[in-house]
């Protein structure tokens, strides 16, 4: 089962299943693996794909001296050329619809087709954001009901639906914390983040005007409660903690941490990026969280990673609810209303403002609510259980070959974390990742979290069957064994991808960001 491509004869194999090189082709294509030029190199700039009426050049010029004085140089492709270009490119892409996508802390789960069907219903898909609310009652009901689910699942009394991604939600939460502290005349300066925090956490705090300080981790990979308590004081505005954390572990001391922070007059932000592992099992409100964003594009299966926009609603505690942003959806006797500046009045005079112009990512709300309703409360609980079970299966099946620094810290949650200890001299996590591409997988998250040398972070999600996990584990094991044995061919992987290893250093040092027309010969 773990050997690659033994199931049938392949044109590039001999009878023993060994790879044999074929002759070079005239086109550079390898059968259905097609080479593709840049779009600028396909269409000539003297051709066009559209048939416009000839302009009336005798008409008076009204450009005020701003007439174009040179060719724009846009490629003129016909419709079939354009369609083929993008279709060919899409075939070189890797997607969750093609296979297991083990990116840690990204929750690359299946995007159910039912979500897509509902989101495409014309009553949702064709709505204009400025349509009067009497004509958008169904859409407002969706936003409201989804918000109610998120409040119930987190045990938190208020929600802001408008933030449009995880980091946008973080900013929303921190701005609410800042507004609450300033409202009580107690502006504070410092936000504490654990060493293993998502990079967006310190970035958010800095963007909101705070100084950021690290909190160290214990050897078992959790927040050092004693060090945190020692640092708390009247200058600490908030603590930002991811739970489960980026080492894949549940922060068992979260309630104690929250109590200590509250006792010191600060507030608690929880990064909910990894909520998938605890949805239906743990209510962050019970842990003392004041604000937490929820990535609908992770836990609630809306497409991401190039496939769709993010959406990051934020839930709030009683302490922060008055400071939540506008607009929000409210249910009254006449139905649903969108409460905005004009209608909020005294009921929401402490709101810190707005995160976005409109309601948020409507297309993601329909998908996320579809996901929630199709699973039900019991189904969501099973999502968390299966996601954790799958991650632990990967961890325990690979810990004998890959260094698992926190293997003794108890069961992992949504993701399994490995390090590069034991690899042969000169072979790195990057080489293993490239080898995994040859095995037909998108590599895992690597070199994060920074607290583990050569980190590899694998999040299989509940999407994968045992068979799919076994094949992936087999591939990981095979490539890891090559890295330990010092297999030189791994240094030049990938060997079978449309492109060999790219020069990332050159790309970063001397990036070519714009196409330039080649000089005429």
């Amino acid at each position, binding site marked *: 089962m773990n050997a690659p491509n033994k199931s049938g004869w392949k044109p590039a194999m001999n009878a023993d299943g060994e790879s044999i090189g074929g002759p070079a082709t005239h086109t550079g294509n390898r059968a259905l693996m097609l080479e593709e030029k840049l779009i600028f190199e396909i269409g000539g700039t003297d051709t066009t794909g559209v048939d416009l009426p000839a302009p009336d050049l005798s008409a008076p010029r009204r450009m005020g001296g701003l007439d174009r004085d040179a060719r724009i140089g846009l490629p003129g492709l016909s419709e079939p050329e354009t369609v083929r270009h993008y279709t060919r490119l899409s075939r070189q892409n890797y997607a969750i619809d093609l296979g297991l996508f083990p990116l840690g802390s990204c929750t690359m789960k299946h995007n159910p087709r039912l979500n897509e069907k509902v989101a495409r219903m014309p009553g949702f898909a064709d709505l204009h954001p400025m349509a009067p609310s009497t004509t958008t009652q169904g859409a407002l009901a969706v936003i409201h009901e989804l918000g109610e689910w998120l409040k119930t699942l987190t045990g938190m009394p208020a929600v802001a639906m408008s933030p449009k991604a995880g980091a946008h939600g973080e900013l929303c939460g921190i701005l609410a914390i800042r507004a609450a502290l300033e409202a009580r005349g107690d502006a504070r300066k410092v936000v504490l983040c654990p060493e293993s925090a998502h990079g967006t956490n310190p970035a958010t705090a800095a963007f909101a005007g705070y100084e950021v300080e690290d909190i160290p981790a214990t050897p078992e990979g959790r927040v050092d409660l004693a060090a945190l308590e020692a640092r708390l004081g009247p200058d600490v505005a908030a603590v930002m903690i991811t739970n489960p954390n980026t080492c894949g572990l549940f922060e068992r001391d979260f309630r104690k941490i929250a109590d200590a922070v509250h006792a010191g007059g600060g507030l608690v932000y929880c990064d909910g990026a990894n909520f998938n592992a605890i949805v239906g099992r743990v209510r962050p409100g019970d842990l003392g969280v004041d604000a937490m964003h929820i990535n609908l594009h992770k836990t609630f299966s809306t497409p991401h990673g190039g496939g769709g926009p993010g959406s990051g609603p934020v839930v709030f505690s009683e302490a922060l609810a008055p400071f939540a942003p506008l607009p929000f959806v409210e249910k009254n006797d006449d139905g649903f209303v969108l409460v905005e500046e004009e209608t909020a009045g005294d009921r929401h005079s402490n709101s810190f403002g707005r995160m976005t112009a409109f309601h948020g990512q409507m297309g993601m709300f329909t998908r996320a609510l579809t996901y929630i309703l199709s699973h039900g409360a019991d189904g969501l609980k099973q999502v968390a259980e299966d996601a954790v079970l799958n991650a632990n299966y990967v961890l325990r099946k690979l810990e004998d070959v890959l260094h698992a620094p926190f293997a003794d810290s108890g069961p992992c949650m949504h993701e399994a974390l490995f390090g590069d200890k034991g690899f042969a001299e000169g072979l790195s996590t*990057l080489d293993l990742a490239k080898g995994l591409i040859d095995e037909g997988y998108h590599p895992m998250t690597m*070199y994060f979290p*920074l607290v583990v040398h050569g980190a590899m972070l694998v999040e299989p999600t509940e999407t994968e069957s045992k068979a799919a996990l076994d094949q992936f584990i087999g591939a990981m094991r095979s490539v890891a064994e090559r890295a330990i044995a010092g297999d030189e061919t791994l240094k030049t992987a990938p060997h079978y991808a449309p492109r060999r290893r790219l020069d*990332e*250093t050159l790309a*970063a*040092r001397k990036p070519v960001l714009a196409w330039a027309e080649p000089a005429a010969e």
Partner: protein
Amino acid sequence: MSRYFTDEHEWIEIEGDTATIGITDYAQSQLGDIVFVEVPSAGTQVTKGADAAVVESVKAASDVYAPIAGTVLEGNPALEEDPALVNTAPETDGWFFKLTVADKSELDGLMDEAGYKAFVAGL
């Protein structure tokens, strides 16, 4: 002239009141290919242990801390054009910045070369 090392993998060379600061060969080997370096501008006041520069490799972006307090004399202008100097000559031409030392007693507790070698060997 004497050279000291920190447990954050910076080296600091003292010549009179002037300190030259960079990252060690071990640090560059861990970071991998350096693609960008941001150094402090002349006149910047830095305190011991505070962020003073940023180094970015294909793997990660990291802060470089001031191992000692002082006033920045200059950042290494060569690193803007050629950050790879940090990979090829980390402890010579790839220096990050020079500063006027405020208080030499802050050097107490830093490691000498032998001490740093032993520290790295233990990692």
